[in-house]
């Protein structure tokens, strides 16, 4: 996936001599993407801690991802594309926390919110997907299959990525938080300061679910891959661990 975005040491040496090899590689990549029979070959910048879990190693253009009941996880997904200059639209989620989004690295100047699309949410989502790189939406009801297929075709044509809060029939992958553990808070003292979660990704392409432990966020409000068992070393005595029940 990253064969043309990562520059190998050899290419760096060549670069200093002439910019041509890089250009050639860029053009070749463009030709391949135009010739590809499957359109899901291009990926958009994704936070590395989450990219590793996703099929294909990152969020793909024109694909749909569904996230189960965690806006924090959606913000983590948006942070990468937004930092890379993509516009993000949030449709039908009035409780989307703006300040937390800004802290996660989502550029508010390129964030557009449509909190109350009413019964036109599908048309609004499609219109927003026409112009924005990433669209987050929450279906108020189950969409019927034909409109889902139409939306999917439009996303593929425009190269936008759709992130759905809740289940979605044709999603590329389903992300959920299967366990969560808060640091810094005790029994009547302290405050929430960091959180270690297990993110599970179920994909219809890859067979079994993949999961990984992440700091979402860590003490400096960053998203990081967690080394298992490191939670107790950060704050001995106050770490708290529990398995998700529902």
């Amino acid at each position: 996936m990253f064969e043309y975005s990562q520059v190998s040491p050899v290419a760096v040496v060549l670069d200093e001599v002439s910019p041509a090899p890089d250009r050639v590689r860029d053009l070749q990549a463009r030709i391949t993407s135009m010739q590809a029979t499957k359109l899901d070959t291009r990926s958009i910048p994704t936070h590395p801690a989450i990219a590793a879990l996703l099929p294909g190693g990152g969020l793909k253009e024109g694909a749909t991802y569904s996230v189960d009941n965690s806006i924090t996880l959606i913000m983590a997904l948006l942070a990468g594309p937004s930092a890379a200059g993509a516009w993000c639209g949030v449709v039908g989620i009035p409780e989307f926390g703006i300040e937390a989004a800004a802290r996660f690295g989502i550029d508010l100047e390129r964030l557009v919110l449509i909190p109350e699309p009413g019964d036109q949410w599908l048309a609004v989502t499609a219109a927003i997907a026409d112009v924005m790189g990433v669209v987050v939406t929450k279906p108020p009801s189950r969409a019927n299959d034909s409109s889902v297929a139409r939306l999917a075709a439009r996303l593929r044509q425009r190269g936008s990525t759709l992130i759905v809060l809740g289940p979605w029939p044709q999603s590329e992958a389903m992300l959920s938080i299967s366990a969560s553990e808060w640091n810094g808070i005790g029994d009547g003292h302290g405050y929430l300061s960091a959180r270690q979660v297990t993110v599970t990704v179920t994909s219809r392409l890859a067979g079994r679910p993949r999961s990984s432990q992440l700091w979402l966020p860590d003490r400096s409000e960053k998203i990081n891959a967690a080394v298992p068992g490191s939670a107790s070393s950060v704050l001995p005595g106050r770490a708290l661990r529990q398995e998700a029940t529902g």
Partner: protein
Amino acid sequence: MTAPAITRTMLLWCPDWPITAARQAHGLAAELPIALIEKGKVFACSAAARVDGVSRGIRVREAQSRCPDLIVLAYDASLDNRAFEPIIAAVELLAAGVQVVRPGVCAVRVRGPSRYYGGEKPAALALIGVLDDLGIEGVRVGVADGPFTAEMAARSTRNVFIVAEGGAAEFLAPLPITTLGAPELVDLLLKLGVRTLADFAALPITSVSGRFGAAGTRLHSLASGLDSRPVTARIAPPELDSSIDFEPPLDRIDQVAFSFRQRADEFIQRLTAASLVCTAVLVETWSDRGERVERSWLHPRSFTAADVVDRVRWQLQGDTGSGSGLTAGVTRVRVTPEAVDAIGNHEQGLWGTANDERIHHGLSRVQSMLGHGAVLTATVGGGRMLAERQKLLPWGDRAAAAQPGPWPGHLPPPLPATVFAIPRPVDLIGANGDTVAIDGRGILSAAPAHFSPTGSARELRPVLAWAGPWPIDERWWDAAHRRVASRFQVVDSSGVAWLLVLERRAWWAEARYD
């Protein structure tokens, strides 16, 4: 040296113009004491305020102590100009070539009107009559050789004063030297014992020119009644606004929008012909009940005809809700450009203007589907509660300046990703089985043991960790907006953390860390 040509001038002076303009704008009665304030000092005051001892230049507090029921308004220079515009239009109907000296004062050449009305006095009275019809009272008119003498004539009367041709020097002679303005020169002349305009005019012109230069020479000629400034007619600004009248009144929004489409096209064409683009419009609508609704609409780039029609539609929708019917028929729609810019600054680049144009088109489409306020951009503002910290603005509107902190008592990071615009009722049960309460000293009745995210007993789940209370005591000086509450953080058994607020003995969820 040949004598310069002196224009016989008729000058119209509306006393206390800023007060008249402010009174019109705020719909205040003429006999109320009003003061306009600029930089903490009285800039202008009405006659009623003057009777109580308010005068220009005193501080607001002093003015209020002299006249306790004084109405204090901020001075707005643009309002003066705007309110004077209909007066100029009325005078222009009567006499061609009006020069606006400043808001409240305008001058015309007397020759034309005096011939038409058969004399200078009838012409002046006709002018006063026209302004009386507009509701502007106490207008004074002076007719004399040159604008300066005419202004002095207008100031010396309560109605009309005519200085005969060639009688300017004689009329000006007894006036004090301070009427010339120019404080530095006047101070010096007073020290030199020159107290009236006659004294100044008596000085030889060569000496004045040698001592005070060109500025002194000009003032000398004013004092001698030889004001040679011509009356320079203003060039009327092009009419850019566009309006449409409906007879009979229309009661459906789509009818109004469709009828206005052509006017909107003309409106934009006229602007384009003047090499302008419009970035803000004022839309006014009149209903058959005589109501007038106005609102100004901003545009992130510049208006196209379709955008203008959209704004008209949204404004009508805003009055009625979302339906297409109107509660009252629309009789008139007018669109006025509020802010214009040179078209050159808004030209598209040779290769297009990147993504922004496309994004704006897409968002405008959604706005025309759902209404102006449905597409929002966000900024982080000031405040302690999370919901009030997020400022949402319709796409296209300009953001207000953020209130800089510090906000002691705001939440420590990380911040919750889900912020409920309207807090949700929840329940927190203590170890003793009752809802947790707090006393005046911030002591909890019991440690939280169970939490219900919906408030119902069936959803109860164990509390794994909690912290608080963090008291909030906001706006204690304002009885209507006072807020006393306590915040808590609670982690429930599914690993989701909640930000709870205990206010008036009820538990609310302000936000969720999900």
